[in-house]
C-alpha cells in the first residue's frame, strides 16, 4: 500500500527541514526505512544509521547547516523528487578539508523512492563543484 502523494511530499519536507536541518533523529527512525540508501555520484551510504551519522557529522563540520525545500514532486506510486538549497559555515574539517570559515550555499535535486510509506532511497545530485569553489579548494577552469 503506497502513501498518498501529499503524505510523501510531507515526508520529503520533513527529510530536509526536520531531519537534515533540525537533526531530528527520532523522526529519521520513523520516516526512513532501516535499509534507507543515500546515494551521491561518488559514494553510497547503505542504511539509515550511516545516513544519521552523516547528518550529525555534517552539523559538526558546518555551523548553522540548513536545508531549504524549494520544490517537491510525488506521485501516487512510490516516487518523489525535491529541489533544495543548503547553506552553512565551514567550521570544522569536512571531507578532509580543514575549516575555512567560508560560507557555502549550494542547490541540488534529489530523486526519492518510497517503500511501504517510508523513504527507501535518495539519489542525490548537488552543486559539488560550486561548493569546492566556495571553499577555495580547487581552481576550476572557467568555461568559454
Amino acid at each position: 500500500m503506497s502513501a498518498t502523494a501529499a503524505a510523501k511530499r510531507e515526508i520529503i519536507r520533513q527529510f530536509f527541514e526536520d531531519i537534515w536541518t533540525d537533526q531530528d533523529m527520532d523522526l529519521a527512525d520513523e520516516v526512513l526505512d532501516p535499509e534507507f540508501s543515500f546515494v551521491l555520484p561518488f559514494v553510497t551510504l547503505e542504511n539509515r544509521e550511516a545516513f544519521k551519522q552523516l547528518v550529525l557529522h555534517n552539523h559538526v563540520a558546518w555551523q548553522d547547516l540548513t536545508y531549504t525545500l524549494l520544490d517537491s514532486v510525488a506521485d501516487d506510486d512510490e516516487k518523489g523528487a525535491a529541489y533544495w538549497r543548503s547553506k552553512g559555515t565551514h567550521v570544522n574539517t569536512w571531507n578532509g578539508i580543514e575549516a575555512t570559515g567560508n560560507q557555502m550555499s549550494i542547490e541540488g535535486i534529489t530523486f526519492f523512492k518510497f517503500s511501504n510509506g517510508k523513504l527507501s532511497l535518495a539519489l542525490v545530485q548537488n552543486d559539488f563543484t560550486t561548493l569546492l569553489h566556495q571553499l577555495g579548494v580547487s581552481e576550476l577552469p572557467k568555461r568559454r
Partner: protein
Amino acid sequence: MPTPEQNNAIAVEFFDTAWNKGEIRTDLLHPEAVDHSAVGGEKKTETGAESFKKIVTMFRSAMPDVSLQIHDEVYAKDRVVHRWEINGTDTGGFMGMPPTNKPLTFTGTTIARFKDGKIIERWANVDELGLMQQLGIVPPPPNGSNGH
C-alpha cells in the same frame, strides 16, 4: 488539461530529440519558457531555448556519439522529473581542450514544469565533478569522502 503522463511523454520527446538527435523541439516549449542552467559553476536563468541549445551543442560537439538514457522518472500535476545518464566519447574536445578520446559517462536530474502541455521551466543538476574528473580536470574527492 494534459495529464501528468502526457506531460512526461512530451518531456521524454523533448530531451530525447535534443540529446540523441541534436534537434531542439521549440514547438514543445511554452512561449514564456525559462531555463535555469548551471554549467561551469555559473548559475544562469534565461528565457527561450538558446541556453539549453548551447549546452546540447557544446556536449554534442565534444561527444558526437553522445546518447541520453532516461533511467527513471516521476511526474505529478505540472511537474516532470527525470533521472538520466549521458554517455559518449570525447572525440571533439571539451572547453577548448584537446580530445581525450575517452568514453565518458555522467548522471543528472532534470525538473520540467509544464503549462498548457508545453515545457515552461527547466532546472537541472548534473554530476559535473564526475565529468571533470574523467576529463582529468580536478582531483578526486579526498579519502573517506562521505559527501554532503
